[in-house]
């Protein structure tokens, strides 16, 4: 039916009072539905704006007192009331970077295995297991990290790292110091394990959307599995895969409890990944209850605001990368 014919039937039927009543009620329903949707979307924006503004207001005192130095100072002294955010920002970025270095390739492997290689009977149970992993509360990861993983790192992994990697010029500085088992590297690995389920389940879902005909055509041309993945599956799903990675990164940046347990919570700037550090979320969780001066509390809220800003910047970069990719693909 064409548009004009549709309009014709409408004007014809609208003379019937029952039909016009029905049309009116449907219009009303539609109107309510639209506003509900609009409200749901607005609610998110309002919450986001309110959170950002209240953190900015709460941290105003710290920003006013310390100015730009708050961003670059590694001082954090509640007695002298000097605060700087550099150590937590650095720790947040470095621990998340380690996490992504581990989580991205592993998640990629899991997702490919589940969609391309695993026998069909295995896909369901393994997929469900990964989703279960995503449901474990972060404090459990933290306790596991502290009680099981940190001692394992201290006893087996770190001594090896120190003998084999500490001597390499350049990156050797990253692997110096006593094998405490608690520090940036351990925190990064635990974080990596935590975000694997998020990234891999997104990747698996988008890999499934690749049309079988595309893959089969490629196989028919004599491609190996690797070539199909690299030349067909990945180009087809690239933007969604990146989206999944940044979802995991967002979670890693804001993770609190697991990091608090294994990061060492020391406001000291160390190049070595074996040494303890601090992250924004961990510092806030640790120190909020006993922040006994206004400037101390304000500095913690300012930290929260900075986490917000850091996350925003990271997600903005992700968007820009996506847009660049889409343009290159000519979509």
């Amino acid at each position, binding site marked *: 039916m064409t548009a004009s014919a549709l309009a014709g039937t409408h004007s014809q039927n609208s003379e019937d009072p029952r039909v016009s009543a029905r049309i009116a009620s449907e219009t009303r329903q539609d109107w309510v539905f639209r506003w509900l949707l609009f409200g749901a979307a607005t609610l998110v924006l309002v919450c986001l704006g309110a959170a950002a503004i209240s953190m900015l207001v709460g941290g105003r005192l710290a920003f006013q007192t310390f100015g730009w130095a708050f961003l670059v100072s590694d*001082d954090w002294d*509640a*007695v002298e009331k000097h605060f700087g955010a550099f150590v937590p920002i650095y720790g947040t970025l470095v621990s998340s970077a380690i996490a992504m270095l581990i989580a991205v390739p592993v998640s990629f492997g899991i997702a490919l295995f589940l969609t391309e290689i695993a026998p069909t009977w295995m896909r369901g149970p393994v997929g469900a297991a990964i989703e279960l992993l995503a449901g474990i509360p972060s404090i459990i990861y933290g306790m596991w990290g502290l009680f099981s993983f940190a001692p394992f790192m201290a006893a087996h992994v770190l001594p090896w790292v120190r003998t084999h990697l500490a001597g390499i010029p350049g990156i050797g500085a990253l692997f110096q110091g*006593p094998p405490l088992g608690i520090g940036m590297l351990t925190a990064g690995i635990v974080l990596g394990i935590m975000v694997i389920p998020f990234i891999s389940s997104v990747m698996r879902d988008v890999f499934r959307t690749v049309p079988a005909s595309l893959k089969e055509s490629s196989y028919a041309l004599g491609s190996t599995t690797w070539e199909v993945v690299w030349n067909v599956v990945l180009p087809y799903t690239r933007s969604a895969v990146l989206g999944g990675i940044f979802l995991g990164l967002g979670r890693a940046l804001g993770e609190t409890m697991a990091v608090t347990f294994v990061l060492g919570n020391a*406001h000291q700037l160390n190049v070595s990944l074996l040494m303890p550090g601090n992250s924004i979320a961990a510092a806030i969780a640790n120190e909020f209850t006993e*922040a006994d001066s206004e400037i101390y509390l304000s500095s913690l809220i300012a930290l929260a605001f900075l986490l917000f800003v850091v996350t925003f910047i990271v997600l903005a970069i992700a968007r820009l990368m996506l847009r660049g990719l889409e343009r290159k693909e000519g979509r």
Partner: protein
Amino acid sequence: MVRRIALFGLALAGLGVALSVASAGEVTGAGSTFVYPLMSRWSSDFNTATGTRLNYASVGSGAGIAQIKAATVDFGASDKPLPAEDLAAAGLAQFPVVIGGVVPVVHIEGISAGQIRLDGATMARIFLGEITKWNDPAITGLNPGAKLPAEDISVVHRSDGSGTTFNFVNYLSKVSPEWKSKVGEGTSVAWPVGVGGKGNEGVANYVKQIPNSIGYVELEYALKTGMTYTALKNKAGNFVQPSLESFAAGAASADWKNAKDFNLVITDAPGAQAWPITASVFVMVYKQPKDAVRSKEMFTFFKWALEKGQAQAKELNYVSLPPELVSQIEKYWASEIH
């Protein structure tokens, strides 16, 4: 601002136990996490004895002070006393309710509890990062005959603000001018070296896991988890072991008589057998309570706690207040609370 802290404290208290909207027959308090196990025990025993309910939210000393200043609770509890002028400004009275203490714990292969002896100045230098090996002459000098390894010392401290930290660094500040000028005292300080564990259990776990480490915890944690605590040299020059007896000696020898509003940190007490890092938990209440009925019930509770509740304290490894201190507190109530 104080109100804002109180609001955050309330949020952290979760169920909002501290909201003072409840009816009579109920007393609410908030603050020190250290005293929480004892408060909950007292709360259930007192409820059985009198029918009055006591709700105590373990939100931390700083939040406890903020909440009593905002008058959202009937009493606040803190490991750190408020100075008399702060109390006067807020119209508060303050008194101690129980004694505890902080003990250094170490993890050294082949060394068992109580074997290592330290003094305040040496401990300050370890926590400053100046003494870095266990076989440093400063340590071996205090421990002739002990086999101390030539290993790096790993320092463990609290990562969260805490009354335990306050009492520990207060002691270090009293015995080491260098500590006082470089680090100072507070519920959280800028530690020159080391890793931070969250809570007593966090420090205890780090010390257990990291070989050649040293940390500090409440006595109860050290005893309950079988940690290697050290002996400490006290002000009188004797090496004492941490125990309920040495804590009691510390509390008894402190100069309570001359402390206005009991504003006294009892570390580095002069008694011959006194444990040097003895600490007390303070309660803050309004001198002129808004609700006389609730206030009366609260003082019934504290009178009961100080006179009858001290046996429970002992069971939970707290130290009861010396009898003369209890009578001093009751006199203080009579003169200060209206």
